[in-house]
Structure formats: structure tokens, C-alpha cells
């Protein structure tokens, strides 16, 4: 009863610390000969092998740079003090789940590992524990939570995001505890079998060892697990790129709609200026809408921002053409009506060609 109370207390403490899902560990306070002290039977550092499986990715929130997922963290180490006769476990190991696992974890040493990029508290967290006759311990931790992750949208909409889980040793320095992974840990670390996310296709899971700065200049061992998610470009094309490319046509229309006869323009400049001003408002409105919907797109250099810049540039170019040619006829005043006529004819195909070529180049650069 007392051990259960203690286990519950330890787990409750772990769950209420915001931003961390720290596992129960009391090694720091435990005497060296206690089962809860660091298992130094195989020397230091204690090697804890880890793998992480993405069970489900429920949602991705680009605006908040976060995602909600359920992950299984598997930690394995060997504690020679926990060896027992193989006959005691007919199935090859002793298994503990939920409360019994928590109770057992309160009795033995377990690594103080955090999922350091949690956003808030996990909505669900369950434990499992297996102890093998030779002292090997395998601990499973299933966590459902929202994780913060960096989003890089430079290649939007052909971008690939990495949904990260940062696993960090919270207390022991890298000289005392080393998080490592090998082939079978990589085999365990898999993407979800199926995905409900319409706009994303899950790829592979990769693990990368890291070091995190701890207190007193110590390095803490860490592993960053990343699930590659490829964005399905098709869905964003309809929402973002068709309006963006369509709005590019407005300044071009303001050039095309005029016509020239013997160097004289046939449509008043102010009518075309109205078209340009209307285009400007349309682009500004689209910009606001996209920034509200896709916040990350507004904060870094990416294809969408470049296309917006191209839109504004095309509008400015169209306005300059409107003023210099249609309103003030500057080429005609300086070089004659025939030069003005040729300037207009040239601009009427060169501006659309260069603007559209630049837009295509932006998309190709994102695909490269």
C-alpha cells in the first residue's frame, strides 16, 4: 500500500511539471547500495538505448508550430542488481503495467528522461516495464501530448517537416548516462501505420544524438527523434497558389487592356489606375487572409512571400507604365510616337513573360 502511494506520488509529480514528462527517478537521493541508485555494475556511463514509435499523429498546427501525437518511448538498459533465476519468468521476462509498473519503478532505478519539447501537460501517459533474467530492463512510456517542433517553410508547398520529439537526460551528465540507439532501436522507431492527416504524408523516422547544456557546464545526453512529414502540395495549390497567381494577372491586365494607334493610347490612364488600385487591395486582402491562416508563412522567406513580393512588384511596374506611358507619354515626348508605340508593344508581352517566368522560378526553386 505504501509503495503504491509512493509510486502514485512520484508519477503525479512527474505529470504536473509543465513542459516535461519526466520519469520517476529517485537516484539522487538514494544510497549507493539501493536499487534506486545508478546501476554502475557495468561501469559508467550507464548506456540507455532508446527508440521512439509514432503511434498516431492527430493534428499539425503550423500557426503554433506544434503537433499533437501519441508516441511510444522505449528505454532499455541493464541493471545487474535485478538479475533473477530464469525459471521465475516462464515467458522470459517479468512484466509490469500501469500501477504495478509505477510501483516497480519506484523501487528500482529508472533513467530521468524528459520529453523536453512538450507543450503543456500530456493528455495521457501510461507505463510498462519488463525485467529480463539477466538484468535487462525495458521500459515503455506511451504519451499523448502536444509537441513543439520547428517549422521550416522555405520550400512551401513542397516542404518536408520534421515532427520532433526531444528526449533528454534530465539529471545525469553524459559521463554518467548516455542515451544511444542501434539498429533494432531504429527498427522500433517507426512512423504511424496509417495517417488521418489529409495534407501530410508520413515518411521515415530518424534519430540523432545530441548534447544539451546542463548545470555547472555539464553536458546532458539527448536524442532528437524526427518523423519526416511530406506536405501534399496539391491541397495548398488550390487554397494559396491559384489566388496568388490569379492576382498576378491584375497588373498585367492593366497593361493589356490599353491599345495604341500611331503612338496614341486609346484608354484613359485613370481607368487603368483603378484596376491597379483594385488589384492592390485584392493582394493586401489575400496577404492578410493567408497570414491569419498560415502564420508561419508570414515569418520567414518562402515561396508564398516571394509570390506576394512579385505581386506588389508587378503592381508597381504596372503603375509606372500607367503613369509614364498612358498618363504623361514620356517616351513620346522624349523619343517620338514610334518609340512609345514600340515600348508599349514590348511591355505588353515582356512584362507578363518575365512576371510569369519569375513565378515559375519561385516554384521550381521550392521544388529543388
Amino acid at each position, binding site marked *: 500500500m505504501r509503495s503504491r502511494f509512493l509510486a502514485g506520488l512520484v508519477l503525479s509529480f512527474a505529470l504536473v511539471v509543465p513542459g516535461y514528462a519526466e520519469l520517476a527517478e529517485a537516484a539522487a537521493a538514494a544510497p549507493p547500495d539501493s536499487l534506486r541508485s545508478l546501476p554502475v555494475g557495468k561501469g559508467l556511463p550507464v548506456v540507455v538505448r532508446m527508440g521512439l514509435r509514432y503511434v498516431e499523429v492527430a493534428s499539425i498546427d503550423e500557426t503554433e508550430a506544434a503537433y499533437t501525437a501519441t508516441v511510444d518511448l522505449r528505454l532499455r538498459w541493464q541493471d545487474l542488481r535485478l538479475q533473477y533465476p530464469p525459471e521465475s519468468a516462464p515467458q522470459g521476462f517479468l512484466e509490469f503495467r500501469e500501477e504495478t509498473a509505477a510501483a516497480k519503478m519506484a523501487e528500482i532505478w529508472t533513467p530521468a528522461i524528459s520529453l523536453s519539447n512538450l507543450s503543456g501537460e500530456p493528455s495521457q501517459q501510461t507505463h510498462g516495464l519488463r525485467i529480463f533474467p539477466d538484468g535487462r530492463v525495458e521500459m515503455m512510456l506511451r504519451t499523448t501530448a502536444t509537441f513543439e517542433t520547428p517549422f521550416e517553410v522555405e520550400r512551401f508547398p513542397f516542404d518536408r517537416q520534421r515532427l520532433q520529439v526531444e528526449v533528454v537526460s534530465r539529471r545525469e551528465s553524459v559521463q554518467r548516462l548516455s542515451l544511444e540507439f542501434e539498429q533494432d532501436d531504429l527498427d522500433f522507431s517507426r512512423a504511424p501505420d496509417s495517417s488521418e492527416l489529409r495534407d501530410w504524408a508520413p515518411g521515415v523516422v530518424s534519430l540523432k544524438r545530441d548534447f544539451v547544456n546542463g548545470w555547472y557546464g555539464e553536458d546532458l545526453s539527448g536524442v532528437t527523434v524526427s518523423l519526416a512529414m511530406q506536405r501534399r502540395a496539391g491541397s495548398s495549390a488550390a487554397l494559396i497558389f491559384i489566388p496568388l497567381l490569379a492576382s498576378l494577372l491584375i497588373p498585367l491586365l492593366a497593361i493589356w487592356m490599353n491599345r495604341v494607334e500611331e503612338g496614341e493610347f486609346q484608354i484613359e490612364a485613370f481607368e487603368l489606375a483603378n484596376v491597379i488600385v483594385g488589384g492592390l487591395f485584392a493582394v493586401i486582402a489575400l496577404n492578410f487572409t493567408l497570414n491569419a491562416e498560415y502564420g508561419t508563412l508570414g515569418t520567414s522567406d518562402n515561396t508564398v512571400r516571394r509570390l506576394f513580393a512579385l505581386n506588389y512588384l508587378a503592381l508597381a511596374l504596372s503603375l509606372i507604365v500607367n503613369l509614364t506611358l498612358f498618363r504623361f507619354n514620356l517616351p513620346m515626348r522624349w523619343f517620338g510616337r514610334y518609340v512609345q508605340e*514600340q515600348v508599349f508593344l514590348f511591355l505588353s508581352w515582356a512584362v507578363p513573360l518575365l512576371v510569369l517566368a519569375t513565378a515559375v*522560378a519561385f516554384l521550381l526553386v521550392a521544388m529543388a
Partner: protein
Amino acid sequence: MKFQRSAPRVLIFSVAVVVIGMAVLSNRLFSGLTSAVEQDQFELIRALWSFNLTAAENRALERAEMIAALPAVREAFAARDREGLLAQCAEMFKRQKERYGVDQAQFHFPPAVSFLRLHAPEQHGDHQDQFRPMVVAVNRDLFSRKESAIAGTGPAIFGVTPMTDAAGRHIGSFELGMNFGPLLHALKAAYRLEMALFIEEQALRQLMFAEGLDPDVLTEQNRRGKYIKFHSTNWALMKELVSEGDLSGPAEAQYIRSAQDVPYGVVLLTLYNNAGNPIGKVAMARDFSSSRAAAGRSLVWQGLLALSGIVLLAGVILIVVRGLLLRPLEMLSQQFVKLAEGRRDQPVAEAETLCDEMQALAQAHERLRTKPQPFAADTDKEVSP
């Protein structure tokens, strides 16, 4: 030939050829830079492997020499006290195996007769001179050697050193083999290299070492032609990067291939044993996406710049040739035609905006138009016989 059409075409075509040529040249130069960077990466991968393999061999040899120099070990080996030798070394070997990747350790009598395998104490007395030439060589030449070889529990990095008794008489040799796995994982951790070790299956099977191997190694999933993947840091990735054809190719190879939508630079090197015989290959891959993406982006930007250059220069040609020359010439021609038809009422409009040469023509037209005309009767007289 109509000058109005042909001249701009020839000029624009010439501009396009020159600009495209320069863009292609520029792209070749940039591709050369990218290739040079990638070649450096390949060389770095080779150097990393060579340095770390040599370091691992040195570590194996250092450990072997330290153990072989222990008086108690020498004494037990000289006395052919297998139990005593095992008692001296078992705990040491266990710790080395658990913590430092030491995989195999064995005492031999000359030329290469197993006296004690620390990793399998129950097996001894077998002659290994056929497949362990380095052990034979060490016991013959009496100096230490190191190599990568296939032995007891599979391929390993060995250091072999001769042993003498207290009186300095040669009594045999001691070898220590280190697993490739920790080396591959250390390289991955330090340099982000993905690695795979392939060993010739025939060598494994012929020598009947399979009994000491993990049975999971000799499976269809690990087979790549005549090779078996013995160890890998990420097999799901490496099996996409290394095909049977790649392994059956030249002793050393490098190439760039995409796996899981990421381009990787791959280096394949052959592993040789001390006798110079190939025992397998090691494949090393590094993410080349940054250099490949830079090359792709550069190609797109250069293409856009070339197109912009062609369009702008074509505009200059069209505006100058047509706006300053051909259209005024066309207008003046029409004026002269009207003049020839006797219509003198239309002067050249805005003649001051024409270029100097055209203004001379316009002035000539104006002089002709305003020149007083002779009477028709006088003309008739002159013409009539």
C-alpha cells in the same frame, strides 16, 4: 529579305545565343564548384573511414599487447593451464565485451592452433592456419600485426601479438578482435554518416563460421548478391542506397543516389585482410541534399536571369530598330508616295522627334512638298514632240 522582320530576328537570335551560352558556361562553372565540394566530401568520408579503422586496429593491438604482457597470463599460457588462463582473463574479457566492443579473444599455439577462446572457452584445439594467415605470420615472424578479418563470431578488427614465457621463449600468440558495430555507430554519431558492412557470404559459409554467428545475419533480407549485410546503422536507408550491382562493381566506388527522397553521397570501399584478400565492403553515406538543392536552385536562377537578359536586350533591339528607324522610315516612305501621287497637303508630323538622319529625309520631303510647281502647259510642251 524584309529588313523590318529579318534585322530584329538576327539581332535577337544573336543576343539569345550569346546569353544562353554565357548562362550554360556559368552553370558549368557552378556545377564544377558543386562537384568539387562533393568530391571533397567523398574524400573526407574515405579519410574518416581510413583513420578510424586504423585507430580501431591500433586499439585492438594495444589491448592485445597489454594482455599478452601480463606475467600471470604468460605464465598460465606457458604452462598450458587453460583453466588458469580463463580464470585470469574471463572477467577482463567480459568487461571489454560489454563496454568496448571487444568481440573475440584467443590464444594460439604456433602456427595457429587454438588454445583458448575467451569468447567460447569450450571450443579449442582446432587448426586455423588455413583461414587465419595473420596468426601464422605473427607466430612465424614474431612481431605484432593488425587487420580486418573474418573469424570465430564473424568479421572483426584484430590485433595479434606474439607471446613469450618468462624466459623470453616464444610460446604462441594472443589475438583480440573488436566488433565493427561500435566503430560504425561511433562514426555515425560523430559525423552523421550512415554505414553498412557487407561480408562475402561464401567466406562466412565455407569456413563454417556460421555456427558462431547470429543466425539473423544469414537471412534473405540481408543478402545483396554475394554479400551479406553484417552490420548497419540504418538498414532501411542503406538497402535503398546500395544495390547488388553496386557491390559487384569496382573495389572503390562513389556515387550520388536518392533514398527516402533525400540525395546521399555514397562511398563503397573494399575491406581487405592482412593477406590482401577482399573480405567484404563497407558502404558509407552522407546527406548531400544541401549541395544538390543549391545546384538546383542555381540552375533555376541562372535560367531566369538568362531569360530576363534575352527579353530586355530584345526589347532594346525592337525599340531602337523599329521605333527609331523602321517605323519613321515607313512613315516617311508613305509621305513620299503621297508626294509622288501629287498630294502636297500633308507635312511630316513631329519631324523634330525623329533622329538626325531621319530629320534630313523629312526636311528633303518638306522641300519637295513646298517647292513651287511648273505650269502644266510648259510641261506638256517639253514632253510633246
